[in-house]
């Protein structure tokens, strides 16, 4: 498997993990934050499907996922959403590096979308304006 395929497979697996996570996260949110979580899950699902379609053997979703930490409140749900988006962004950033041409553009689009979602969830958590200089850079 080439480095590009490896990076894309990792990113697709990250999308599956994010889809699972939003099922947990959304159950603790209401109002606009819940709407963002619902839209984020949809975005991840669409992205997973679009990229997987282009792969000869896309990775299968895992049977079991574990949240990064217990999600028991609005605050922990928002923190989990930020963590999920940061991890997903890091995977797409790696995919940008490993690819070229149209695939690189698609990976960059995914990184951009993830960065915007991450900043939005940070703002819901009270971190204003919620931006960071290098989205996708693992801390």
């Amino acid at each position: 498997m080439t480095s590009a395929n490896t990076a894309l497979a990792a990113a697709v697996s990250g999308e599956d993990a994010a889809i699972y996570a939003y099922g947990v996260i959304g159950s603790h949110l209401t109002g606009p934050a819940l709407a963002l979580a619902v839209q984020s899950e949809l975005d991840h699902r669409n992205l997973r499907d679009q990229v997987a379609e282009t792969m000869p053997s896309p990775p299968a979703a895992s049977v079991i996922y574990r949240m990064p930490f217990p999600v028991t409140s609005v605050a922990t749900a928002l923190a989990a959403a930020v963590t999920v988006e940061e991890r997903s962004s890091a995977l797409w950033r790696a995919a940008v590096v490993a690819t070229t041409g149209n695939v690189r553009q698609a990976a960059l689009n995914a990184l951009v979308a993830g960065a915007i979602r991450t900043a939005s969830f940070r703002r819901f958590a009270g971190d204003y304006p919620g931006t960071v200089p290098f989205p996708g850079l693992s801390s």
Partner: protein
Amino acid sequence: MAAIAGAAAITVAGCTKAPVLAKPSATTIATDPLGPLYDETTRLISTYDQSMATVPDLINLLGPLREDHRQHANALASLMGIATPAITAGPMPSVSTPAAPPSASLTGSVVARAALADAEKSAQASATLAAMSAPAARVAVLASIAACRATHVAVLR
């Protein structure tokens, strides 16, 4: 040329034995493919400074965004193998100020935010273009800069 490229690579890698570079080289900025992006970044920082001077109510929003750009300028300088630009940290939200969006009721605020959003949108396009054609050693930083600028557009609008 090989020696220059080598020096840049050492600097980017953060090696402690990197050569001391005197100051940003006009020649390097003019010839490096990242030169226009670097210049655009420093101009953006100046625009933020002017906006914060004109509309101090926006410092809570614009201060952190300006700091993002200052870090971009430093990273681009590192990629190009030139000295870190002498751009000081700008004003940041005060500790006693509640973390809340500034009022958009003032015409000056609305105009400033719209102008900055337009500038950020253009800057995002520049970073995206640079990321698409950059070698692997540079693309990660450029991709993150493009993504950061997209978050700026989103929060300014």
